[in-house]
Structures are given as structure tokens and as C-alpha cells.
């Protein structure tokens, strides 16, 4: 079976850096997918990302990126754009070693054929802050970019009639009501 992974990358504790996991959790709440599609909040996996991507047919990552574009801009990157960045350099602020992991997967002959990085230009990376307004407004556009890619690759999905509550557990909540009671 040809598999695709939609992975949210970033630190949910650092403001706009958490937009990747945020988008993935929104997708999970709003859509249902076929069994060939998996979704994951990957956090900041560094070299362990290799284990998530080997053997995939397609990889779609969502992440905040550093760029000169205004905050909230959605920038799409393909595999060749990512591989142009040498391992020690980084496309984004928190070093998920994406190019290194793709190169390792290439060396193993198990690199995903299709790679899309949905990059969202962030503005505020302060600890404990919610997504900035500009970034929040780019979430719908990011979801659209992901769904377009799934369609292009022939993977199925469906909008839920009754969406779930998205699991944004790191958002503020009242004391005495722990996330997992």
C-alpha cells in the first residue's frame, strides 16, 4: 500500500512554532481519511524524523519557517528545495534536520517520492503564547494546500458531518480539570 504521512512539526510551547501540530490537529478534527493516510503531531523530532519517513510514498509536513515574507504567508517547498539546504544549515528556526533525514532516507533507497513542506511564516515565538493572528489566519490556507496535495496524489478524504473538538491541549484551561483525568 502506498502510504502518505501528514506531519505537524514544531514546538507547541513556543507560540507560532506550534502551528504545524495545530494544523494537523485541526485536520484530524475536521476530516476523515483513508487508511493509507496517517497524521501525526511530530513535535521537534530532529534526526528521529528519518524513522517516520522511510518507506513512505509521500510526505507532507507543516511547519513554521523563517522567511522575509510577512507573517502568515504560506510558502510551499518541494524535495529539491529542501535538499538544497546543506545539513548543518536550517530552513526553519528549531532544527528538525529535515534535509539530513531526507538525505539519509535517500541513502537507504527509501525516501518518499513526493515531498511537500507547507511552511508558514511565523512572527512570535515566545513561550506560552497562542498563535499570532496572522498565523491563525493562515491555518485554513495551509489545510487547503494539504488537501490539494492529497487530491493530486490520489489519496481520499472526506469532510466530517459532525467535526470533533480539535485537541489543542496546550491552550489555557481551568486548573482542577487536567487534560487527562
Amino acid at each position, binding site marked *: 500500500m502506498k502510504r502518505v504521512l501528514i506531519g505537524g512539526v514544531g514546538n507547541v510551547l513556543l507560540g507560532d512554532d506550534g502551528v504545524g501540530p495545530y494544523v494537523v490537529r485541526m485536520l484530524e478534527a475536521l476530516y476523515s481519511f483513508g487508511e493509507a493516510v496517517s497524521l501525526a503531531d511530530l513535535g521537534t*523530532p530532529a534526526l528521529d524524523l528519518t524513522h517516520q519517513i522511510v518507506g513512505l510514498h509521500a510526505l507532507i509536513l507543516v511547519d513554521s519557517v523563517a522567511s522575509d515574507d510577512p507573517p502568515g504567508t504560506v510558502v510551499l517547498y518541494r524535495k529539491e528545495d529542501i535538499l538544497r539546504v546543506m545539513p548543518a544549515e536550517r530552513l526553519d528556526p528549531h532544527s528538525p534536520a529535515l534535509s539530513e533525514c531526507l538525505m539519509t532516507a535517500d541513502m537507504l533507497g527509501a525516501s518518499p517520492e513526493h515531498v511537500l513542506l507547507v511552511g508558514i511564516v511565523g512572527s512570535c*515565538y515566545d513561550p506560552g503564547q497562542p498563535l499570532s493572528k496572522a498565523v491563525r489566519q493562515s491555518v485554513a490556507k495551509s489545510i487547503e494546500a494539504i488537501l490539494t496535495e492529497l487530491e493530486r496524489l490520489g489519496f481520499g478524504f472526506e469532510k466530517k458531518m459532525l467535526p470533533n473538538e480539535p485537541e489543542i491541549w496546550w491552550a489555557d484551561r481551568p486548573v482542577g480539570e487536567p487534560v487527562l483525568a
Partner: protein
Amino acid sequence: MAKRITIDPITRIEGHLRIDVEVDNNAVSNAWASCTMWRGIEKILRGRDPRDAWLFTQRFCGVCTTVHAMASVRSVEDALKLEIPLNAQYIRNLILIAHALHDHIVHFYQLSALDWVDVMQVPKADPAATSKLAESLSPWTRNSRNELKAAQDRVNAVAASGQLGIFANGYWGHPAMRLSPEVNLLAFSHYVQALEYQRKALQVVGILGSKTPHIQNLTVGGVANAIDLDSTSALGMDKLELIRTLLEQVVTFVQQVYFVDVCAVAAMYPEWFKIGSGVRNYLAVPDLPLDSRGSEYDLPGGYIRDGDLGGVKGFRTAADEVFRKSVSEDVVHAYYQGEKPLHPWKGETEPAFTGWDADKKYSWVKAPRFNGEPMQVGPLAQVLIGYAQGHPLTRKYADMAIEKVAAIGGVRATPAALHSTLGRHAARAIRACMLAELAQKHLQLLTDNIAKGDYTVRNVPVMPTHEVEGVGTHEAPRGTLSHWIVIEDQKIKNYQAVVPSTWNASPRDHAGAHGPYEASLLHTPLARPEEPLEVLRTVHSFDPCMACACHAFDPSGRKIGVAKIL
């Protein structure tokens, strides 16, 4: 005249570390370790429910997620004086061991082996001769000529592409690289295989923790795993059997490949038993509890001062009174406000960035001190503290390492030679072998306990209304991790994490004492100062992971340059 070299950041480590060294007559005469990122995640825990803290701390670092989750629940349990059911202890122990085995394998092969192994020599090797050499070293079944040839072909393919890809950053052909093409091929072949076994170790974490990279099964007071021997979805015979199979494969790789490769590298670079010592104060806490109260452990802890193994002092528990009282953090040379060293329960994290200044503040890492002194933490501390206390399992594998190095290279290392760069690698391999053996033991303990009919996994916590303090520790792959919590009115009043890389990467303190990275670099000879491979060897031997030491992002978004000579 001394010349300053800045290595910014150190490649092949997790996160952003900067090292500055002064070089005089081709040897390091002074050193500064600094972290280029801001720390401050702990502040967002204030005011939250203590039962949620672990979900947040698990996000401190994307590499060592589970260790911060574990130390966090333990800190709350310590504050509440809560006992943990046996099943929960064993399940936690298995997760911690599997994570550590994964981490040690990644460290040696993916993060540091290429400091010693010259990948560009691999094409010159004779796979048949390599296979013969491998047979003389280990019974490992995947050292055949065909498997080695396949590994060689991978290097040939990367080299033929004209771009070195993942190997673009090595100091290939450096005069300090001395292995034969065959040894280089053997090590490279294991570098490729290591990726498979890391993944198997992660699978164990995933089965027990429900998910990786962020486990879901923890809870203050125990674990949330449902146990049912007949079920395929709960933790039952099927899953226990799968864990057993995966662990067997990882254990074999650790004992027949990783351990042997480290001994072989040590035998071929024996001068590195004399380089890289530095701070000889060592600290480790007991871990892998064997009872619900946490009074008996499989791994010992304690501390050693100034390399005096005979004077070792042991800790009775993972939150020992001496440990609780003796830790403080100094910020005189770190970018934080404050003058006096503070105990973590009183700790503050108010930034005061001033820019890198060798004489003043130069790092985002605080300087943790134990009774006012810098301490080295990590596998070397763990092994020396165990060895000095006559811990049988530590002695078994430490003695085995000494014999293996002697058999390969004719060099007889002593326990004292472990105070070195190679000593840190050897100790990590020794620790990995110990953990491998303990993985199987704890799986058996869990299986036997469940078979007795005990399905208990959690004691439900009751939050007191008065103020309580707790410390949760874990002897993590990189060393002593401690989370310090103050709970008031059922909310978190203060939270501080004193992490292994903070101990080791610490800057100088108010007394001017170097941190372990800094001290270990002094007197290191450099064959080519413009290519400071030797500095990388020593720094990498600590297995730096700055993500949790400083927690954050690089605000400058600066491009990376390596080894800039000022």
C-alpha cells in the same frame, strides 16, 4: 600568541551549541561553552494543574521527550509522597530503558562515529577482508561480504553523485583520522544497520507509551495502560511477546555490534584515553526502581569528588536528602538576572541578554552546582559511581570492555583511563550493555507480576491545599535530570528543570570554575587548528543536546558557519 577559534554551532548535535577555544602552540589553552538559544519554557507551567505538567515538559525537547515526561510525574509524586504500583514502575522502566538504548545507538553511530571513521576511505576497502576482520571481532551475523559490499555501494553512490549529502560536513582525510579502509567500512556498515535497531527500540517505547514521539500513557500516580492478558488492544500476551522479540534484536545489536565497535575504536585511538578529562567530580542518581516506594533500584547513584573513586558517596533514593539540599544554579556568566546561586525550588528564569562576552555573560545555559562545585554527568559518571561502589552489573561490563580493548589493540586501560574522551564513549557502551540486560529483566518482572493476577497500574493522587515541594529525577541517557516543583493551592507555583546538558555545558560560575565541556577541552592537541576535529571529538563524547538545556529557537535565524577563526 593565542588564537581564538569559534565553532558555531557544533554540527551533529541536537540544538545550538557554540564553542570558543583559544589555541596556543597547537593546543587548547582556554575554552568557553555557550548556548545560543533562550531558555524559559518553565515559566509557562506556573499556575497550571500539576497533573498536566508532564504533557508540557515532554515538549521541552523533541529528542528526549519521554525523559522529561517521566521526571515531571516523579516530581509531583515526590511532592505528594505517592507510591507507584509495581506494574507502573516496570512499564516506566521499560520505556526509559528502550528510550536510552535508542539514544545511545543514535549517539554513537549517527552523532559521533564520523569523528573517528573516515567515510571517504570506505570505497578503498576490500569487503572480503573486512568480513574476515569482523568475524574475528564479533559473532554478529550481519557482517557478511555481501552486506558489507552493499554498504560500500551506498557510499560509492553518494560519492558518485558529486554531492556528499549527509556526509558534506566531515573532516575527511584529516591527519587525526587513522583507521584502515576496512575498519572504516565495517563501522560504516554498522552506521547503516544502526538505523534499523534504533527504530526497533522506538517501537518498544511506542507500544508501551501508545505513541511516539510523545508518549500518552503516563499519569501522576502510575500509568494509564490497560492490562488484559487476553486482549490484543490492551497490554496482553501479544504485546508482551512483540516487545520481547524487539528487545532481543536490540540487545543483540548493542552487545555484538555497538559495544564491540566502541572497543575497537578505543583500541585504535588509545591516546584519547589521555585526552579530554576535565571536571572529575561526578554525579548520578539511582534509577529503575524495583518496589512501589522507590527504596530499591537496579542502577546505583551517588557522587565522586576530584576523581577519588575510593571516596564515593552513594545516594539511598532517587530523591535523596543530600541531593535535594545540594543543588543550586549560578547565573553570573549566563544571560539571566540575579547574583546569588539559587536552589531550583527558588529558581528564577528572567532573561538578561547582553551579547557574548568572554569575561562576563556568554551563555543561555545556567551553571548548576552540587555543593558549590561543577559536576560531570552522563554515562561516565554513572559507570564510575557504580564501579566505585562495587555494583556487580557495572563491574561485569566495565571489566569486559577493558578485556575487549586489550584483546583488539594490546592496550590495557584502567578504570582511571575512563576520565577521558574515549572513557565517555566506553562508559556509554558499558551502560548500554547494562541497560540491555536490564530490559529483559524488567520485561520478565512485568510479565511475572501480571501473571500473578496484579493488574493495578495507578494510585490516584489527591492534591493537598497547603504548599508542598517535590523533586523528580531520572538518570537519563545524557545524565542526571531533575525536575523541581512547588505546588500551592493545587497549582504549580514554581517549576525548574535542571537537565544533563546544563550540568555538562555549564559556563563558569562566580568562582570562575569551568563547566565540564570547557574543562575537558583544555590542553587538547590540534593537528590543524583550522579544522578542529579534536575539539569536536571531545564535545561530541558528552552527547550534547541543547534543545532542553535552553529550550528554544535561534532568534537570529542566522545561517550556520563552522570553525571561524578570529
